[in-house]
């Protein structure tokens, strides 16, 4: 196809991405450009065959929402432990027993993460000395 607009503006036009002025410009262009008319028709026909072919099934609304909710939950879950164990461990090691802390978990975390046992906090990749310094 000879017209360079078939690769650019034409797609914006058929996808409704052009503003009104540019869409009107392109429509005027279509009157005199057989290339663009042919490509536009071909693209529209490809589009309608894909959409009609039953190739694709959108997830039902309820399932979609459930998955999205779980994804949001997982994101939180992966972020929370990074902060919480460190706080519990800090409270435990500095002699404060926070009322809000989960009783069973704090000792477990504190044992797992002793300063001076040669490892960092295990979450952020910090050096052992840094992890120990935070607790003293």
């Amino acid at each position, binding site marked *: 196809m000879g017209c360079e607009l*078939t690769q*650019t503006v034409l797609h*914006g036009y058929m996808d409704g991405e052009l503003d009104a002025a540019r869409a009107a410009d392109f429509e005027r262009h279509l009157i005199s450009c057989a290339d663009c008319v042919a490509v536009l028709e*071909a693209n529209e026909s*490809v589009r309608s065959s*894909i*959409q009609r072919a039953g190739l*694709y099934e959108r997830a039902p609304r309820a399932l979609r929402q459930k998955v999205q909710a779980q994804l949001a939950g997982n994101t939180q879950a992966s972020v929370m432990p990074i902060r919480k164990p460190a706080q519990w461990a800090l409270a435990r090691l500095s002699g404060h027993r926070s009322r809000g802390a989960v009783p069973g978990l704090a000792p477990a975390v504190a044992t797992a993460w002793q300063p001076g046992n040669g490892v960092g906090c295990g979450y952020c990749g910090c050096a052992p000395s840094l992890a120990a310094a935070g607790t003293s």
Partner: protein
Amino acid sequence: MRFREVLILRELEGCSYKEIAAITSAPIGTVMSSLARARQRLQRVLTQPAGQARQEASHGL
């Protein structure tokens, strides 16, 4: 950017260029040019004789 991805997002999910750009982490210009090439290629595949089309399809879409 994969042709199949932009086509599905645009034609089947009905995403805007902006949304596609966000999903694929590509600039809008790249989205537009990929979409143009994807359409061109899919159309060629769909209108070619079967044997040739299969070969072409396995190469890009």
